[in-house]
């Protein structure tokens, strides 16, 4: 299942787990969208998600860079951060790793700070907090070519001298500057790089000893005698702790936070001047494109066209591919079935494993097409504009513009969508986003809807030949999910997550052409994650379900489904779900779909004893129509629109919120809504 060996080149290995003990580890740090992940890929060979959208590295990534002499150095790619105030989850992750408090990896032995040269000064705000770590540091000035093309410039040597660290000009995308970066890794591995001067900031005796050996230690000495400020004298140390033993603080102590940043900004500007930094002229192309994409009329119009296009792609363009995979699964299943003896093993393999897994793999094209589109939108820089356009609407319901990407991703799958919510800086906004994402109609609901609509909704035209009752029902279900999401967000921000949030800051990066390579890697990554999920959850559930239909044995034969363990469970819960219009078969389907929504299709297929149980199966449709009426059918659709029937979503929500509290509330709330909604639907129709 793993395609890791497929994506890693020969000179690199990637692990998602821990670093081998005793090996050297170097951390890549930098603001969002500075090119860290591109550099990481170049160093380790793993092609991972690199996007022109702030906050793409949602998890730390680990790889190994092989040095020219054959040694290997561990490299960890941290989420992009502007600082370590630890407000967002990304900042906490970055801070923990850098300070050696991450549970799964040792403290890093060196740091590579990657900054975008076209935005050098604000990006250098990270220099001081990074140097304060007291680790050997390399500053990588990424995209210097673009800086110079747009009429800017910087003297890297002067910058190195001022900061007291090694500075490399690079273009990570083109591989420029990699030699010197590898040389730095080699030096860290040999222990040949001293910690920077500002190491004194952390105040350890060890770091101070380092500082004394390095050029610029005079600065540290100066700061000891600085009369009015501990921070003013040292060009790079801004920590309140300071090297200085002097207890004197900067003036206006009532605003210590502001002071720290104002002082730091002043030093950075001065260092920039000394390094003859000239900012680039604004990109002409970006200016022109923004005039269109952020236009009062065209902007929102293009936004809606883009969203419509993404939907069209997921549902219309994916259809032939999905049909193809479906046919392939059925044909190969039949072919295999013909070649196996008719016994329990064939039943398990074909009815359980092959059809169960097959009914889920069908969604692969849809998920890949969605992520291809999201990838193009992110890498090109449009996603940041879309977030700006969406912000006002989102703000009204209690969310913010950054929640747009998670919510849109939610139409494919809630799992990556919940992880993408990490880019939402405000913690309350992030929790609200995670809470409502599962209401978005994910592609796992689609086979359930398709089956039920085909079974219970008559195919008659409503508005012309292209918009019939079935299409209207599907649209209605999508709207139902969206309305529930908006209503819930609105409710949450007035109850559990009360609080005004005005912080929405979105950097609009220059437009760039997405590279095929980056898009391809992103899709490989997605395919791998999806297939792994199929392999674990869906496979397990299918096998367990199949087993439950096989026992207790009657005369050595599998029992009738009605008498099997599964059937008995169904009959026990039947009274509970009867008011919703469901019978015991649906009850078993709902229980089994706790693992994943689409499982209900396979379960019903198994129960009805139909071998090729897939969502287009006419027999299954007919059997359903015989057992349930239209009210029950619509009630079941409404149930699935609301209920949080997905173990993977619950697991990722637990991980992202740091406990069971939120997923528990979320699950109970969505189930309550689902039961009430189904009850009402069953009464109306």
């Amino acid at each position, binding site marked *: 299942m793993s395609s890791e060996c497929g994506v890693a080149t020969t000179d690199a290995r990637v692990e998602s787990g821990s670093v081998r003990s005793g090996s050297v580890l170097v951390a890549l740090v930098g603001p969002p969208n500075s090119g860290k992940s591109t550099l990481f890929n170049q160093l380790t060979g793993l092609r991972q998600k690199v996007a022109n959208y702030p906050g793409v590295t949602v998890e730390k990534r680990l790889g190994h860079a092989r040095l020219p002499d054959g040694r290997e150095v561990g490299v960890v790619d941290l989420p992009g951060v502007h600082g370590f105030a630890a*407000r967002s989850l990304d900042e906490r992750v970055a801070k923990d790793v850098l300070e050696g408090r991450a549970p799964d990896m040792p403290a890093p032995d060196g740091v590579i700070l990657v900054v975008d040269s076209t935005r050098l000064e604000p990006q250098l705000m990270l220099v001081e907090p990074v140097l304060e770590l007291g680790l050997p540091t390399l500053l990588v000035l990424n995209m210097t070519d673009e800086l110079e093309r747009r009429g800017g410039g910087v003297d890297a040597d002067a910058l190195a001298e001022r900061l007291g660290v090694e500075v490399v000009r690079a273009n990570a995308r083109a591989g420029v500057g990699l030699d010197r970066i590898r040389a730095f890794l080699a030096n860290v591995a040999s222990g040949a790089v001293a910690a920077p001067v500002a190491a004194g900031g952390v105040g350890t005796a060890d770091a101070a000893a380092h500082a004394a050996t390095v050029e610029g230690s005079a600065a540290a000495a100066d700061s000891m005698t600085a009369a009015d400020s501990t921070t003013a004298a040292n060009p790079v140390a801004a920590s309140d702790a300071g090297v200085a033993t002097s207890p004197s603080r900067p003036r206006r102590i009532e605003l210590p936070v502001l002071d720290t940043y104002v002082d730091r900004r002043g030093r950075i500007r001065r260092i920039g001047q000394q390094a003859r930094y000239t900012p680039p002229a604004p990109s002409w192309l970006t200016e022109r494109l923004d005039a269109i994409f952020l236009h009062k009329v065209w902007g929102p119009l293009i936004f809606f066209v883009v969203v419509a296009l993404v939907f069209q792609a997921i549902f219309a363009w994916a259809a032939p591919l999905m049909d193809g995979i479906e046919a392939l699964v059925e044909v190969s299943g039949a072919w295999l079935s013909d070649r196996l003896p008719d016994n329990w093993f064939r039943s398990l393999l074909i009815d359980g494993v092959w059809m169960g897994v097959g009914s889920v793999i069908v969604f692969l094209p849809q998920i890949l097409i969605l992520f291809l589109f999201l990838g193009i939108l992110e890498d090109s820089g449009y996603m940041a504009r879309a977030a700006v356009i969406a912000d006002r609407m989102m703000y009204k319901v209690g969310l913010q513009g950054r929640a747009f990407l998670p919510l849109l991703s939610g139409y494919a799958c809630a799992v990556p969508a919940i992880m993408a919510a990490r880019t939402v800086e405000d913690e309350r906004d992030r929790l609200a986003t995670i809470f409502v994402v599962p209401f978005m109609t994910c592609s796992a609901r689609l086979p359930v809807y398709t089956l039920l609509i085909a079974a219970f909704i008559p195919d008659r035209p409503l508005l012309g030949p292209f918009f019939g009752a079935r299409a209207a029902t599907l649209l209605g279900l999508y709207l139902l999910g969206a309305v529930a999401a908006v209503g819930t967000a609105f409710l949450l921000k007035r109850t559990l997550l009360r609080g005004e949030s005005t912080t929405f800051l979105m950097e609009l990066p220059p437009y760039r052409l997405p590279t095929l390579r980056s898009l391809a890697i992103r899709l490989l990554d997605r395919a791998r994650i999806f297939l792994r999920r199929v392999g674990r959850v869906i496979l397990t559930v299918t096998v367990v379900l199949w087993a439950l239909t096989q026992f207790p044995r009657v005369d050595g034969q599998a029992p009738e489904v009605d008498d099997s363990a599964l059937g008995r469970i169904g009959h026990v819960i039947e009274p509970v779900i009867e008011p919703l219009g469901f019978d015991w078969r649906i009850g078993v389907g709902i229980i089994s779909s706790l693992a994943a929504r689409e499982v209900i299709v396979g379960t019903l297929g198994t129960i009805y004893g139909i071998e090729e149980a897939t969502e287009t199966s006419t027999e299954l449709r007919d059997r359903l129509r015989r057992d349930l009426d239209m009210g029950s059918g619509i009630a079941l659709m409404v149930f699935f629109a609301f209920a949080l029937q997905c173990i993977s979503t619950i697991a990722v929500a637990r991980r992202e919120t740091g406990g069971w509290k939120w997923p528990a509330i979320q699950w109970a709330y969505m189930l309550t809504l689902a039961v009430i909604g189904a009850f009402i639907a069953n009464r109306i129709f």
Partner: protein
Amino acid sequence: MIAVEQAAHTSADSVENVGEFSHDADAPVLRLGEVPLRRTVELVRIDLPTDTMVPLLERGIVPGCRMCPLRQSPSGDPILLVDGVVLALRREMAECLRVRDIAPDAD
């Protein structure tokens, strides 16, 4: 180290101001929202609670820095050019940023 001396001098005069720009001390203090497009102004004060202010500060947006409203988003929120970065924020926040015109000869 020249940097050291300069830093020691300037940061002592005022923390409201990085000290790099000569601003027009008599120019009235405006809300950022009142500044016409394409006019470069200097940030004088941020009237926000510390928590809300930190994301701005971390991006180098501190009193003394220059900013220029580039355009408005379709919903009327400001899009600024600050230190070469194009940054979108909400008008509610822009109302809390106090700015002042830069003296004409300072450019």
